[in-house]
């Protein structure tokens, strides 16, 4: 990128902020009745199912047609385009697919409007998904997909060494690994890995370790409280596992796909990843673990594991035209029938609780009940208006510690978390 492009980017952003991008507090009552054509903005649709769903909606709604505006694959770029189009007040961008962690920022900065409670009932939806779409007791988005972490494990290896149940704690997992590794005598076989590159995935994995150890990042009072012995135990465990080599050192550069590739190549006994891996590991032609693996809830540090909450919600933008059609479209996309169709096509987890026991879905995705447990117990990542700063502060602290571990040193998790606590106190007030 050239310097002038940077300057342009900075300048373009400014011109609209100067005029104010809409402050939620002074916004007049929103008209949720106007029908007309709208655009739906979402990241890349790899399943090809979305155009079908939109065609179905359009057939039922002659007064307002929906066009799919496809955004890049990367979450950062999606967020950036949504922010830029809010600032230029693009009326076409009407319904957007919001990552759960963006909810606070988009709501607080007035990018999206609160949804009318009478039209958007939340009964029957996963409680954690609804919480993820709520800001200051108002629902700003309607949950469309959810996600929780799962423990993928090599059932064939566990069976071979007489281990009857998947581990529920890291200690059990280590015991299982030691037994299997001693028997297999394969230097390429590693015990466990999640996502530890310095990016959003690290925040997810760090949060899970802290929560599973009984710690919190932000307490119930909304204040950061991460400099605790419990939280330190969570981070220390990850760093020590790197030091011991139970987590391969290369995993400090791994994102979802690197870990999935390693698991499918048979290099990992246990692997933490999202639901989307299930379908791929069963069907990829390179996967050597086809039919040899199963999924379980995440193991924890001192007890059962706690997942971080993932997923996307549908929100209606402040500047979008034709909010009547937008309301109809959001309701349509979150309806039971459409969620089921979407899950069957993409293996993304639905947000309606009853779908997890739906016979068609469970038949195709036997891990659905496990996924439900994972999501029900999930804790969202910290809610913050300046989430970008918060997640970077978390990544700074966590990455430093696990890199020390990967380098063969003993990380000082307590000191890292004290530094994090100081930073979070200035970011979350």
């Amino acid at each position: 990128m050239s310097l002038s492009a940077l300057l342009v980017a900075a300048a373009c952003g400014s011109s609209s902020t100067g005029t104010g991008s809409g402050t939620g507090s002074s916004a007049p009552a929103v008209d949720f009745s106007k029908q007309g054509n709208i655009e739906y903005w979402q990241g890349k649709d790899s399943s090809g199912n979305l155009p079908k769903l939109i065609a179905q909606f359009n057939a039922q709604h002659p007064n307002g047609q929906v066009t799919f505006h496809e955004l890049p694959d990367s979450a950062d770029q999606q967020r950036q385009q949504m922010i830029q189009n809010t600032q230029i007040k693009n009326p076409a961008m009407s319904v957007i697919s919001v990552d759960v962690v963006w909810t606070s920022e988009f709501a607080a900065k007035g990018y999206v409007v609160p949804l009318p409670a009478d039209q958007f009932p939340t009964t029957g939806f996963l409680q954690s998904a609804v919480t993820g779409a709520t800001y200051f007791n108002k629902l700003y988005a309607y949950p469309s997909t959810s996600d929780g972490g799962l423990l993928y494990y090599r059932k064939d290896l566990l069976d071979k060494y007489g281990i009857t149940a998947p581990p529920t704690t890291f200690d059990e997992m280590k015991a299982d690994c030691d037994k299997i590794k001693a028997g297999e005598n394969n230097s390429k076989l590693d015990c466990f890995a999640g996502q530890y590159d310095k990016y959003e995935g690290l925040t997810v994995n760090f949060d899970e370790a802290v929560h599973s150890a009984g710690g919190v990042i932000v307490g119930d009072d909304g204040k950061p409280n991460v400099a605790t012995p419990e939280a330190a135990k969570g981070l220390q465990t990850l760093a020590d596992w790197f030091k011991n080599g139970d987590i391969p050192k290369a995993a400090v550069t791994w994102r979802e796909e690197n870990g999935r590739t390693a698991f499918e190549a048979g290099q990992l006994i246990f692997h933490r990843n999202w639901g989307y891996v299930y379908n791929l590991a069963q069907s990829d032609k390179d996967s050597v673990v086809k039919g040899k693996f199963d999924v379980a809830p995440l193991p924890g540090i001192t007890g059962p594991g706690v997942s971080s909450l993932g997923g996307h919600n549908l929100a209606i933008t402040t500047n979008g035209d034709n909010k009547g059609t937008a309301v109809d479209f959001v309701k349509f996309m979150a309806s039971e029938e459409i969620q089921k169709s979407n899950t069957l096509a993409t293996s993304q987890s639905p947000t309606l609780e009853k779908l997890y026991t739906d016979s068609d879905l469970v038949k195709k995705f036997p891990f659905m009940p496990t996924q439900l447990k994972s999501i029900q117990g999930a804790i969202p990542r910290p809610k913050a208006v300046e989430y970008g700063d918060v997640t970077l502060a978390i990544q700074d602290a966590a990455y430093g510690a696990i890199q020390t571990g990967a380098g063969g040193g003993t990380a000082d998790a307590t000191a890292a978390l004290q530094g994090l606590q100081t930073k979070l106190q200035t970011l979350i007030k």
Partner: protein
Amino acid sequence: MATATAEPRVTTVKEDGHKHKKNALSDGQGRLAYILLAPTLLVILVVAGIPVVMSIRESFFQTNNGVDPTTGMVAGGERFVGLGNFTSIFAGTNPVQGSFGTHDRFVNAFLNTTAITIVCVILETILGVAMALIMSKAFRGRGLVRAGILVPWAIPTIVSALMWKLIFDADGVMNRIIGSQILWTADTGASFWAVVIADTWKTAPFIGLLTLAGLQTIPAEVYEAAKVDGATVWQQFTRITLPLVKPTLVVAVLFRTLDTLRMFDLPAGMIGFGKYRTETVSVFSYLEATQTRYGPAAAYAIVLFVYVLLIAFLFVKVLGADVIGDTGMPKKKKGKKGSGNDGKAPDAAAPGLEMMGGAH
């Protein structure tokens, strides 16, 4: 004024039609030149001038980001902070751990940018000159070698960034070759060298090509005379090749220096964001902009802008980089007089140079 304009007319009438014609034509051409250039100037003003001015204006503002504790809403809009965005660079409120110890994040990015530039440009210059020396030799398949050397330069940077990301993967080709597992893309000292290697690979051919153009302007007689006098190859290189190729080489190094100072794609695409050992000023500025902190982002971009200007100025003043091509022309013309056969080379080299600069 009226008399002044009237006088030449009188002289033109006195003299033959030739002068009259010339004067009239030059007047018309001047106006015509303005008219013809106007669209270009307008475009430059719109695409370069206005954004720069807006950017400078933006750098004096900050977005309001206070959250109302009762409604949870952010006030929005922006406020004037004067030089606040610039002075906060020196306040050191955001310390990060980088290759050069713990510094403010901007200072760290600035040090990275400078270090990467110095190391890369030195390596690229050495390699580039070597490539040029090889390419200038007459041998079978020279065209193929030249084209081959240019391939890295032709690949878009973001594509080569992703390619090198695969090479530097924990299980990638590079680690297979060196036989040990170095985590190049983690936030370690190795990532700094990964960026240096990828950038050198990509842009040494650029210096090579420009130097080659310079080499071709050196008349063969000079070397023949040196051989007769018994100069060694090394003496020929240091006493003839380097001094004569210097004007071209300095321009090539200048272009590379300015370009490397605003490096973005390689660290961003290959190493990723938030890794302080390879975070450059461009990357940091971009990240601030994505956090909707446009004021500081603009301020950082402007500091970089000034830094680039300063380096360019130093190159022109101290090293005598001949960017525009004025001062080099007489020298090249001398060469033309000296040797009739090589006379075409200097003229051919100059436009080639400008094209490379312009294309970049």
